[in-house]
């Protein structure tokens, strides 16, 4: 009998075939799934449901919670975690572009013997060899010859390295990040310590303030926790009882934050503390109260030093005096001056005078994260300088580097690059081939943040005490290995085993202490369930408001003029709001226009149009900017909102490595910074003065704004 297949059977078979075809692509039905992008989508395929994983954003150290949409083992989209107390479901541009880091074509794809070359070496080693190398390095050196240099994130790895160095008897790991330097974190926390008797990161309750005076704090860009502060700003603007919040920004160059302010007061760099004091005195007079710490301030002299009229200061003081919830905050370049600590204290004293310390819309201290015993801040520039000197003296024989790129982020004048040559063995755990990684002997790449377990402490921005959790959202794409696992395995080989099997067990052991606590976002009877919830919700936090209301301030001010280097122009370096310190290797961040100039893909020098006219400079003319420490060349952007005696350069470009989208693009203004620090140890980079020379060349900057209108026509001069 010949086998006859009826039409009905045929349809059944065809149906079965189609079902099978769909199922094989559907994760759980087949054990192995080939991960490929749906670029050339098979026909008649129905996109299944996505899987979402809660984790923590690693694009900066703020610790925002994210939820990653994945499909068939690929991460597709970053969204904010709505439950997370810091960002409440929101993200910034840098967080959105995290995927371009994960899928970056220039990642370090496996362990390498790098051998300090100019580009990534081709000599791969096995992970067994890699772990052996780390173990040898730990075993064959005296503890004080070993050093760990780490970035601001992730915290779990820092904790692990701290335990390891503790066990070895080696110096504690040093943490550094360019954002911490540009934020002047050390100055801010030191001022809080001196005024409130408690070292902590101040939290400024923008959301409940109605008149806000910001002295150089670029809180909508990269400062401390930009998503949280943007949320606060938004609520401040919408106002309470329909009373719209009012923002005044004091700085020499109109930043993105100043651009959305109601008033921008272009005061002379370095005069912020004096201005705050003068406003405090005038506001106290307007209220008929005692001027407290400011009683000896000469308002007229302060106005003169800042280059504003006394009437203007009186008007501004009146605004503050008549506000219900006035708030003053300081940060960034304003504190990166020789008198930065006094400026920070002056601004906090102004808050104290206005009576808003510990009040809604006022100044609080950020709560410590769960399990944290004391406020911890990264190394200041001064401490980094001492560390570089120690390396330079040859005292460090083995240097482990993770999550930081000091060859780019530290000013060249610190001499890190030269010092590194004195270290016998440099082992980098870099995910990307950045400048520092290339100078290492070995690169043992860590997973990307979206492929990793871990946690990050929320150090400011949320009212709750929060620990943000991280978990892999995809299986690692490359032959990378968690640095925590490498360190644990190497420590065991070196006979210094820590009591954790792997990274996951380490994280779990750190969470155990929270299981019996009440008042958390979730509760679980035992650690395994707790860990499951921790991964599901993206962290653990206590639900109540944990902001610390500090004791009344007792300020002793010693306001002095800022000291500047020799030079014609004040230099205002600012972190690129779109790139941050490490976004240059992500093409969509490069193509996201700078919010104020709309420039993409390059570095520019902002010069006031009047000044440019005097120097015979046009848009796109290349200028040479010369400081005592170095020089850079970049095209001019005629920026209408900058003081004529000031120029500004964004930080974020100027890489010589770090992948195809970053390398050889723009310049790094940190090359211009000298090693001078302020009283709190932060770099006094805003005290740099520079000379401007015409280089006789030009390069057309790529800007979005020329697209508006007919390629810039009809927009007037300077556009």
């Amino acid at each position: 009998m010949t086998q006859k297949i009826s039409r009905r059977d045929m349809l059944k078979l065809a149906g079965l075939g189609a079902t099978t075809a769909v199922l094989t692509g559907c994760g759980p039905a087949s054990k192995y799934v080939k991960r490929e992008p749906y670029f050339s989508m098979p026909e008649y395929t129905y996109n299944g449901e996505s899987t979402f994983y809660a984790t923590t954003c690693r694009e900066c150290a703020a610790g925002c919670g994210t939820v990653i949409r994945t499909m068939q083992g690929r991460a597709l989209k970053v969204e904010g975690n709505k439950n997370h107390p810091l960002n409440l479901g929101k993200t910034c541009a840098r967080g959105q572009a995290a995927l371009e880091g994960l899928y970056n074509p220039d990642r370090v794809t496996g362990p390498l013997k790098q051998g300090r070359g100019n580009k990534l070496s081709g000599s791969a080693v096995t992970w067994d060899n890699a772990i052996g190398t780390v173990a040898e390095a730990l075993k064959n050196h005296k503890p004080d010859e070993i050093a760990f240099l780490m970035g601001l994130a992730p915290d779990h790895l820092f904790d692990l390295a701290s335990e390891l160095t503790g066990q070895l008897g080696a110096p504690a790991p040093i943490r550094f990040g360019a954002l911490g330097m540009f934020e002047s974190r050390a100055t801010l926390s030191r001022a809080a310590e001196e005024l409130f008797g408690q070292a902590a990161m101040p939290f400024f309750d923008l959301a409940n303030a109605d008149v806000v005076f910001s002295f150089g704090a670029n809180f909508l860009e990269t400062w401390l926790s930009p998503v949280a502060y943007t949320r606060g700003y938004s609520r401040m603007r919408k106002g309470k009882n329909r009373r719209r919040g009012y923002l005044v920004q004091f700085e020499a160059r109109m930043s993105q934050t100043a651009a959305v302010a109601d008033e921008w007061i272009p005061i002379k760099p370095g005069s912020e503390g004096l201005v705050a004091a003068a406003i405090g005195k005038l506001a106290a007079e307007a209220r008929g109260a005692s001027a407290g710490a400011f009683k000896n301030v000469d308002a007229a002299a302060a106005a003169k030093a800042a280059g504003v009229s006394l009437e203007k200061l009186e008007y501004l003081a009146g605004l503050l005096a008549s506000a219900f919830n006035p708030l003053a905050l300081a940060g960034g370049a304003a504190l990166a001056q020789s008198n930065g600590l006094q400026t920070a204290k002056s601004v906090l004293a102004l808050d104290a005078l206005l009576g808003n310390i510990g009040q809604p819309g006022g100044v609080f201290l950020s709560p410590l994260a769960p399990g944290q015993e004391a406020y911890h801040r990264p190394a200041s520039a001064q401490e980094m300088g001492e560390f570089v000197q120690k390396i330079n003296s040859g005292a460090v024989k083995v240097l482990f580097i993770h999550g930081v790129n000091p060859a780019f982020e530290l000013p060249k004048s610190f001499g890190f690059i030269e010092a590194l040559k004195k270290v016998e063995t440099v082992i980098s755990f870099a995910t990307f081939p950045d400048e520092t990684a290339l100078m290492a002997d070995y690169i043992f790449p860590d997973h990307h943040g979206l492929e990793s377990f871990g946690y990050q402490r929320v150090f400011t921005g949320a009212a709750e005490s929060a620990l943000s959790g991280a978990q892999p959202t995809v299986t690692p794409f490359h032959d990378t290995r968690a640095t925590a696992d490498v360190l644990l395995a190497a420590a065991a080989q070196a006979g210094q085993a820590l009591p954790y099997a792997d990274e996951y067990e380490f994280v779990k052991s750190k969470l155990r202490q929270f299981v019996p606590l009440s008042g958390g976002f979730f509760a679980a009877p035992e650690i395994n369930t707790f860990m499951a919830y921790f991964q599901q919700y993206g962290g653990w936090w206590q639900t109540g408001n944990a902001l610390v209301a500090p004791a009344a301030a007792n300020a002793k001010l010693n306001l002095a003029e800022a000291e500047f280097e020799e030079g014609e122009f004040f230099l205002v370096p600012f972190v690129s709001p779109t790139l941050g310190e490490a976004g240059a290797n992500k093409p969509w961040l490069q193509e996201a226009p700078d919010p104020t100039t709309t420039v993409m893909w390059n570095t520019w020098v902002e010069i006031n149009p009047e000044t440019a006219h005097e120097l015979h400079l046009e848009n796109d003319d290349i200028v040479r900017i010369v400081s005592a420490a170095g020089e850079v060349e970049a095209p001019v952007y005629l920026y209408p909102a900058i003081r004529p005696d000031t120029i500004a350069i964004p930080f974020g470009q100027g890489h010589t490595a770090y992948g195809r989208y970053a390398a050889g693009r723009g310049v790094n203004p940190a090359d211009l910074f000298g090693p001078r620090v302020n009283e709190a140890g932060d770099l006094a980079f805003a005290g740099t003065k520079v000379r401007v020379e015409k280089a006789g060349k030009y390069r057309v900057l790529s800007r979005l704004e020329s697209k508006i209108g007919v390629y810039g026509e009809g927009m007037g001069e300077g556009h």
Partner: protein
Amino acid sequence: MTTIDLNLVGAKGALVEEAEGKWGMVIDQDICTGCQACVVACAMENNIAFVGEEDSGYGRSMHWIRIERFWEGEYPEVKMTHYQPMLCQQCGKAPCEPVCPAFATVHSQAEKVNLQVYNRCVGTRYCANNCPYQVRSFNWRDYNDDRLDEAIASLKNHFNPDVTVRRRGIMEKCTFCIQRIHKAQDKAKSEGRAVADGEFTTACAQACPADAIVFGRVDDPESLVSQLARQSHGVHHLEELGTLPRVTYLVGGQ
């Protein structure tokens, strides 16, 4: 918001249909901080190509949403205008639609948004020429072809399978994240209910840290977006052209 005197204009039936929106957006310029989160979120959601320094310098960047800003006055009395996110206004009476010879840019009857049918588009660019908001972008090259740029082979792993990848010679623009609209409608339908206000939102509104962008049903007077759009300081850009935009901008504080 001005009302249109339909009797005066004539063609009452057609205009009523055009004036009725379904999906709409409110953008509060007073709280927009210009941070570009919406721009990057949109690019990640909608598989938008980056074009590189040279092409973007020629104005070929493919942003579906961009943030405009203008200057007023001169130093020291200089002021930046409020940041103004600009995207396809999903006009009820869209100037781009009648000029397309290929019927690639048409109006959706179901969703009442402007569609761009990529496989009809022949790249005349008439629509971009006629768009008063300058929000259409054209694929001048095959930016997503990994034979031309090997880096794309890795980067395209994040591409959203719900959104078509466009080729050279195709015009594209904001779709109000129509893939999200459809997904929410499918889900609601399978659960036998209507899509709730705020159940889903566009990628730009979802990312916006200031909550300056709100998306929803404008034909539901109770929805958040309708309530916000009714405020006295809401304006429609280039309203005088009669485009009936679905995006309302809140300008200035209250």
